[in-house]
């Protein structure tokens, strides 16, 4: 079945479902997205939306913002029903947020943060990068900021003085571009995104080299506000997320996202991040 006909079929199903459903069923479920994955790929976004429409039987509105902070803010104030956030902002607002599910990547709900440099750069570790320029992904990103900053802190150095210049590229792909293009010497990037990029844009990642990988940390989770956990929209969404690997649309979306499935997770998954947060906040 081609993409077009499949979309048409989905639209028909959605329309039929909407016609037969109560009024709330026509209100779209809003899912906030952060650049924890290949958020620049329209195809991926569309497939994910289609799979969730199929799974929930309701219209899905995927809400993207430039920064994690904006999406987190939207979620906290009720602008979206749920969000695919990084573990770091989840822990920052752990008191108000609840886990919906954690994606499983390469068999586990875990990922790593990569420290990358230009392909020709002789650096072999973080300490070699002192005094250089560095690209972070987002100030609220675990892999794109917290891991590197906490590593610097653990080395006993001041994160704000370690690099001569730092910048936020707001997206892991952007970090990879900044390093590949030579804008900065090094970058902190989501290992999952970098690996996914290596599969779809090998020419880009080939111009970078991973010199350090963090320990395995909790994969960016789907979260919602604690008070919304029982909302029909949220429960419907959660069921759809868990059921992604059971429908053809879901499987296609997972294939594009290079994920296995989404499973229920526990906050203890993010203990590694919690530990790094403590290290940084302690300074």
């Amino acid at each position, binding site marked *: 079945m081609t993409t077009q006909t499949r979309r048409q079929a989905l639209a028909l199903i959605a329309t039929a479902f909407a016609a037969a459903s109560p009024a709330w069923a026509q209100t779209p479920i809003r899912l906030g997205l952060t650049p924890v994955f290949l958020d620049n790929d329209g195809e991926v976004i569309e497939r994910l939306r289609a799979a969730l429409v199929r799974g929930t039987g309701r219209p899905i509105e995927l809400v993207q913002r430039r920064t994690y902070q904006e999406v987190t803010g939207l979620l906290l104030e009720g602008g979206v029903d749920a969000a695919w956030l990084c573990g770091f902002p989840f822990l920052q607002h752990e008191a108000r947020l609840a886990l919906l599910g954690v994606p499983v990547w390469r068999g586990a709900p875990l990922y790593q943060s990569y420290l990358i440099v230009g392909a020709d750069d002789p650096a072999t570790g973080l300490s070699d990068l002192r005094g250089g*320029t560095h690209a972070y992904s987002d100030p609220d990103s675990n892999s794109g900021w917290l891991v590197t900053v906490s590593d610097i802190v653990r080395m006993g150095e001041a994160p704000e003085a370690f690099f001569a210049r730092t910048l936020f*590229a707001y997206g892991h792909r*952007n970090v990879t*571009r900044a390093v590949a*293009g*030579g*804008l*900065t010497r090094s970058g902190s990037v989501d290992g999952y995104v970098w690996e996914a990029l290596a599969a779809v844009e090998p020419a880009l990642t080939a111009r970078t080299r991973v010199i350090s990988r963090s320990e395995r940390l909790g994969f960016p989770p789907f979260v919602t506000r604690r008070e919304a956990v029982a909302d029909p929209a949220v429960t419907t969404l959660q069921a759809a997320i868990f059921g992604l690997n059971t429908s053809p649309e879901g499987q296609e979306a997972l294939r594009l996202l290079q994920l296995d499935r989404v499973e229920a997770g526990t906050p203890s998954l993010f203990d590694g991040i919690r530990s790094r947060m403590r290290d940084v906040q302690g300074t």
Partner: protein
Amino acid sequence: MGALTLRLQSLPLSLRLPLIAAGLMVLVGMVASQQVLSALSAVQEERLRELAQLHVDGLAVALGPAVLRRDVWEVYDTLDRATAAGSGQRMVLTVVADDAGRVIAASDPLRAPVDSDVGPLAKGAQPIDAIRLLGAEGHIRIAADLDYQGRRVGRIISELNVADLVAERRAAGLYLLAGNTAATLALAFGGYLAMRRMLKPVARLAGHMGRMEGTLEPIPSTDVPRGDTELARLFQTYNTMSGAVQAKTEAERRLAERERFVSLGRLSSSLAHEINNPLGGLLNATDTIRTYADRPAVVRDAADLLDRGLRHLRDVARATLDHNRMDRSGQPLRPEDFDDLALLFEPEVARLGQHLDWAVQAAVADLQPHPAVLVRQILLNLLLNAAAAAGGAGGVGLYVAADSKALHLRISDTGPGLSDAARQRLLTDDPVQPGGGVGLRLVRDLVRQAGGRIDVARRDRTTEITVVLPAGGSPC
């Protein structure tokens, strides 16, 4: 340059003019090519200016806020995406600097690192409204201010790849060169043929004149160009001139020929008297013989008288004949030649009642190297001229001296001296004025022919013309 000019001048006209025409064609071709190339450059530069202005304007809109915030990533992201979008083929590098000249970001950060000084990159950058494509440089740099919200917030330096434009211009230059060379060669060759064809009659005229060796002969009418062109008129003028020159030469030749007889002609009346005078006595003698045939003494006296008269007549006739005998040309001068002259000249002196002073003091051996006919011609002309100048009861003199080196002839008269016209004839080569005789000019020609000289002097109311003829001069 001088040698080239000289070499060019030594070329025949039929080659020189086509060469000059070809040279002019080359010059025109070069100027035209230059014009085309500069027009092409102007078009290319205008295109580049528009492109660069669009590029900068677009970037200014997109980058303004980011530059204001000094947002390195935003600036880089915009430049990187703009490069990837296609304009990168022309824009090789774009650098955005803040108003202090520090690089915020560049499309290629390796060439222009963040926070580096933009100065070296801005060096040689041209403002957009004055973009020029100079030389064979494949890249040029432009610089423009980055204005946002009405104020300058930074600078944009862009490196443009103009290799295709340079190549296009070079190709156009080569095509023009090839085309112009071919056209110039063709036109020069055509010009050469046309010029040669046009100048062919001139070459023919020059060739004809070259063959004449001093004489002018008309060009046959078949060789005269058709139509009433300048060249046809030139040929006709040449033919008219050559005819006139020929006629003049012929007239002069006939005049000189006649002059030899003119001097004798002038003596004719005297000679007639000379012959007539004794005739009465001779006739009387024949009457006497007839009347006194029986008186031997009377007959003898009459016969003697008859004999003397006839001998005198014989001498006069011989002298006259000798003067004009062509078979004597080349004969050496003898004392008898002076006697002949005296015989011929004395009747003229007698007729005019003049006094003749005649002195020939020369050895036979010293006379021999000189041609008789030439000397006799010279002397007879000068003596007749002297007699005419001296007038009635005047005096005429001849003094001849000779040594082994030269023959000196001095003719004197008591006349008023040589007129300007006579002097001009005798001493110069100026054209002979009409109205006068050619005797004195003949003397000059003969003396010059013999390698001699003529002096004219006036002393004691006597005109003296001295002719000196070197021994061994040109034989007559």
